[in-house]
């Protein structure tokens, strides 16, 4: 095989794995949007906040220590213990569930039947609040996250694929973390699909996503379902936060991965779970391949804008997205 083709394959593989993470973030958006009609601007900050909480718990950080020290003149920062990653992940999931409950209790319960734009504005407010709250709780310094996931290229894959090419080809470079992220994302999606198809709560969730009035009439509590989807979205954010945080540290820029989910949603449609997954993969592969093939000719740095332009072109021809339901105004 010519080396150029092999590199293209490697780029595609890496793109697929980057795309899986985009899918994951987009999935969080779709879940909340389907069930409640809320476009949750705070999804990215939720990923950041969950990653900060995870690091904080693992390191035995005292939450709100700056605040406590400022008020009481103390100087405490750490409990002096370390919590195993798996326990810390579970605790963080509990925190995200409490967050979901609080968000509904304090905000969205009072905004039932409001215009979508009002709900959207509320999530912008929520995003900035949560960002500040996270800093207050865990401090704003850049933290490194290590839950024990393997990192760096896989030598095994490199060694065993080197023979495919010629002298200049050293084998596929595949990041182990990307592989883990892919496996975890696939499992997570499978569990979510099984949940929504085969459990009572899943059926109720689909009912709420379809018609609020009808859902109420069969005895489903809307606020229960909303807390449930926000919790699931919080958990999805946590998984994305772990992967991203492990790779590039837990810092503000982590919340910007939400922006990568936007073109994915434009491509996949705001209400389609398969759309979020396929959309994420298309964006991931598309931007890596485009940079590889076309980037050198036009000066590179195409990854910053490629996804948006692709989504824009797509929007013009298919506004409802790949799998989105056709939008027909009810009269």
């Amino acid at each position: 095989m010519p080396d150029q083709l092999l590199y293209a394959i490697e780029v595609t593989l890496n793109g697929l794995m980057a795309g899986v993470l985009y899918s994951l973030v987009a999935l969080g958006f779709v879940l909340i949007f389907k069930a409640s009609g809320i476009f949750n601007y705070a999804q990215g900050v939720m990923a950041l906040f969950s990653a900060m909480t995870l690091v904080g718990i693992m390191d035995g950080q005292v939450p709100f220590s700056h605040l406590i020290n400022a008020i009481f003149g103390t100087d405490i920062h750490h409990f002096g213990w370390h919590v195993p990653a798996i326990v810390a992940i579970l605790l963080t999931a509990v925190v995200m569930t409490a967050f979901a409950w609080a968000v509904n209790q304090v905000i969205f319960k009072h905004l039932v039947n409001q215009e979508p734009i009002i709900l959207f504005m509320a999530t912008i407010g929520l995003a900035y609040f949560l960002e500040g709250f996270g800093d207050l709780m865990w401090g704003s310094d850049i933290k490194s996250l290590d839950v024990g996931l393997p990192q760096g290229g896989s030598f095994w894959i490199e060694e065993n694929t080197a023979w495919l090419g010629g002298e200049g080809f050293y084998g596929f470079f595949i990041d182990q973390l990307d592989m883990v992220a892919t496996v975890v994302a696939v499992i997570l999606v499978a569990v979510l699909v099984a949940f929504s198809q085969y459990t009572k709560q899943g059926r109720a969730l689909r009912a709420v996503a379809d018609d609020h009035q009808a859902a109420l009439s069969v005895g489903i509590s809307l606020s229960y379902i909303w807390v449930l989807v926000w919790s699931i979205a919080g958990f999805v954010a946590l998984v994305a936060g772990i992967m991203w945080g492990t790779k590039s540290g837990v810092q503000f820029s982590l919340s910007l991965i939400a922006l990568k989910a936007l073109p994915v949603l434009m491509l996949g449609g705001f209400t389609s779970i398969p759309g979020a997954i396929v959309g994420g993969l298309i964006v991931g592969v598309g931007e890596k391949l485009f940079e590889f093939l076309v980037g050198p000719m036009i000066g590179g740095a195409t990854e910053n804008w490629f996804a948006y332009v692709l989504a824009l072109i797509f929007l013009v021809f298919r506004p409802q997205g790949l799998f989105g339901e056709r939008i027909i105004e009810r009269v």
Partner: protein
Amino acid sequence: MTETSEGYTTADGRQIGGVLMEMKNITLRFGGVTAIKDISFDIREGEIRAIIGPNGAGKSSMLNVISGFYHPQEGEVWFHGSKRPAMKPYQVAQQGIARTFQNIALFEGMSVLNNVMTGRLTHMTTNMAQQAMWWGKAEREEVENREIVEKIIDFLEIQHIRKTPVSRLPYGLKKRVELARALAAEPKLLLLDEPMAGMNVEEKEDMSRFILDVNDEFGTTIALIEHDMGVVMDLSDRVVVMDYGKKIGDGTPDEVRNNQDVIDAYLGVAHD
């Protein structure tokens, strides 16, 4: 007809029981509009109770009060002999009151079978942890509920469309699926808002037959809103007549038919 607190016997010899639901001095306002003005009436165990009246009379509003979608500013709702606190619609549903809507509210993205299955949600008791840990129990519950649902689907003669997405069904069949979903809850009280609106004669006859059969076979108490007077006269045991938010008549179909206020309302005599 002799009416006592214990109940009464209908013209066709059915035994009607005591009061199941009682509305006491209900008043419901929307801003300046008073949709219901100080209305009281009761629904008895086992009866078919009709609510009739011209457009905008407040019939749907009354059904929405019973099912918890609207909350009256004044008045009390009594169910099973005790006063009901202000309840959310889902809590009312969990108490055994099922309903259909004037404008059909189905889960358009789901199949007929899945729509009807949602009617069983109030009867499914395993929680999320149990479903995750103890798959067998959840599965058994699903199978049991599925059997009940299949019976209802047979009963309403919609087997041939079991797997069809609801969005592809014609209007008349949608109404029937909505009835099936409400029935799946095995309600004590079934509320039907214009179950035959927009149907042709044949479909109306089918629907009438189903309503009578439901009442007869399951003993379900039914309150229904209907515009077709012929249908109302055939189906119902007692009728409440509303006009401009007020109750202007209450009694057997014959009594109501001969009530001057009712005749005036329907003939469009000018209101003063």
